[in-house]
């Protein structure tokens, strides 16, 4: 549910009045805006029901970025993030003396998702889909393009898709307690197969306009048949079983770009539920995954490190 106009104004005022923004890169992101309204203290953090979404991104900031690290502000759903971004820009279109925010250092990060998210007419890019094509070519991030944009969009469908990329298999293998998916130790290739099998039940993809949008995103995968959802599923499964390692990667990323992945992440659990509740376990696993991204090299081809590498030029 999006913020009302009054709530949006209040939220923007909170951001510009926050001293955290002074001389800092500010990144607006998705998450429960009402979760933490109290004074920032260990006690108020403890009372949060779950790990704030922003903390994943915060923990992804590269380990070499020691000073003037970005500050995150949670804004609600995807549309709220965009609304907040443009409202803050509008508020700073005239000189003002009540803001710590430097609008040149204001950024936003949103999920790609399948439904379209329209941007303000003042922005050179009209919507989320156009932004996706400007930042990614055939699944590869374009760092130069990031430098020119102030809104960043995930190259995979949701943030949660980054919790399930193939390079994370060694992390899962070494993690304790053992990471289970469907009551067995997680094997990502098995997860991708299951995703492909369930592709035909994806509510978003069943809608013609969204299916069309999804196909366009992954049309560079020559092995896939975009005729209809059934054909896409069958062609993915056939191609995956016979593909080389590099083609498999391409197919996996294609799947993670269009398919609802949140349900699969929900299935992740520790090998014994009685030793740690599944939700707590997943929150901790998320921070470990963030640490994986934070430790990638400067020239990493991963999307999130690529975003932060580009962003660091503004610090």
């Amino acid at each position: 549910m999006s913020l009302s106009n009054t709530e949006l104004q209040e939220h923007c005022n909170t951001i510009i009045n926050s001293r955290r923004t002074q001389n800092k890169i500010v990144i607006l992101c998705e998450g429960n805006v009402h979760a933490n309204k109290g004074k920032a203290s260990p006690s108020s953090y403890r009372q949060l029901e779950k790990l704030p979404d922003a903390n994943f991104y915060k923990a992804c900031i590269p380990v070499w970025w020691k000073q003037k690290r970005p500050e995150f502000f949670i804004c609600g759903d995807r549309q709220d993030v965009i609304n907040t971004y443009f409202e803050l820009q509008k508020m700073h279109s005239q000189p003002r003396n009540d803001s710590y925010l430097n609008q040149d250092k204001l950024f936003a990060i949103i999920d790609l998702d399948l439904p379209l998210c329209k941007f303000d007419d003042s922005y050179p890019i009209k919507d989320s889909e156009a932004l996706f094509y400007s930042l990614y070519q055939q699944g590869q991030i374009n760092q130069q393009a990031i430098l020119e944009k102030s809104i960043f969009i995930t190259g995979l469908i949701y943030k949660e898709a980054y919790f399930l990329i193939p390079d994370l298999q060694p992390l899962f293998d070494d993690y304790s307690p053992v990471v289970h998916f469907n009551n067995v130790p997680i094997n990502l290739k098995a997860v991708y197969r299951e995703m492909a099998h369930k592709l035909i039940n994806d509510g978003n993809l069943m809608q013609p306009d969204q299916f069309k949008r999804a196909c366009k995103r992954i049309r560079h995968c020559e092995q896939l048949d975009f005729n209809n959802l059934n054909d896409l599923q069958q062609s993915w499964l056939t191609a995956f079983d016979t593909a080389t390692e590099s083609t498999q990667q391409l197919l996996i990323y294609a799947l993670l770009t269009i398919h609802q992945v949140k349900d699969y992440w929900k299935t992740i659990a520790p090998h014994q539920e009685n030793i740690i509740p599944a939700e707590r376990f997943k929150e901790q696993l998320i921070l470990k995954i963030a640490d994986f991204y934070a430790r990638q090299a400067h020239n990493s081809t991963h999307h999130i490190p690529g975003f932060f590498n580009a962003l660091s030029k503004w610090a």
Partner: protein
Amino acid sequence: MHLLRVQVPDFRVLKDIDITFEQTFNPNVFPLGSLNGGGKSTLLQLIFVLLHCSAHSERHQFIANMLQRVGIPEGENSKLLARFELIDGAEKIELEFTLYNDDYLRQLDINPIFNKEMVSFGLFPKKERLLSSHEKSDAEIEQEFYDDHIDSDPSLSQREKQAMMTALASSFHEYIEERNKSFATIPPLAESISESLTLKKQHYITSYSCNGNAIGLLCHSSNVNKSTKDINAILITLSKHVFLSAPPTQIYLFLDEWSKELLFKKRDVKRNRWVDNYESKLDKVKNELPNFLTFDVFAVDIVVALIEQARNQDFKTQVDTGTIGASYQKIIAELNLLTQGKKVLPQLDENAAITGIVFKTNNGIEIYPEDLSHGELKRLSIYVWLKTLPKGENIVLMDEIENALHPDWQFQIVRDLVEWGKDNQYILATHSYGLCEALTPAHVKELEPKLITH
């Protein structure tokens, strides 16, 4: 060793404390929050003193200092001080530290040849004193007696002293008679009490006096198979693996009363009494508690020790293999990685002994100490301190780790701790929201303010 749970029913400001530090949590770092005066530091100090000092009699004075003025409620004969659940490998260990008074001892099955009225926790320190004096010669005992009884005023003449000694001669004989009687009764009675405690699987740690009453601290394990010998072995292991670091400005409850009072005394500069101040007392304590560190400006002694250790290791490698080792290079490289853009080098005297540390820019220009940030030095100090900790799982208690660190670094210090000592468990008393954000909300523990009873 991992601390799973600590319970403190009632100790100073701590009331009904029951905190769990889940072993399955990743990472093993637990921020501990409370309001100012909420008891974070008290809790860390209590854990440290009980687990680091109990196995070593020379450290028992710190337990007694900590428990000063802690008595047993009227009409009771015991008071539970703290209960710990720990895990060592696959074994779960439960330890209970309880205070008892003499009424409890008198209910034990003591050999009837002894007078029950004599049964007291006060016998244990007396026994220790007697046994230590047993090794002294008659001349030494006599000298000690007179030293204790004659004013040490240097203005007294030799004749005056001699006169005082003559006057005290009969008292000395009475003292010797009393001492001989004590030898015949106190050690056997203390032994009998110990045997009874052993049968009840109660491990005697120490005793102290509160309002004229003797109180004993005993440790018991709820694990049915643990004898007092086993408990002692556990406490010895724990003493090696429990660490405390905190700011030097903290009030340490385990210091003696006079040292704590010095905090509020005006320094007598005219009489050059700088030596007798809180800081110097704290320095002395640090020598006696090897696992205690205060966050001073820079832990130069530890850095020097670490470099010396690496140098010696390299020499040993050369003796063993004929080729010089790479430990020195490795440690310098690690230190340089922490001090971005600066190089850490040992400062040598003419005999190549390490006398200190020098920081240089990458161009070789020396950096003055005032040009280094406090936060940078603190981070480096924590790093080298953790490097000196024994291998394996340690319980590291850190108070106000965020002091001097920018919020960006407060967030990062959690990752640093895990990287610098991945097998350790960290319990961090903190006010920092930024530090907590590096972990999940469930990692954060709190000493909650108590509701007011109306």
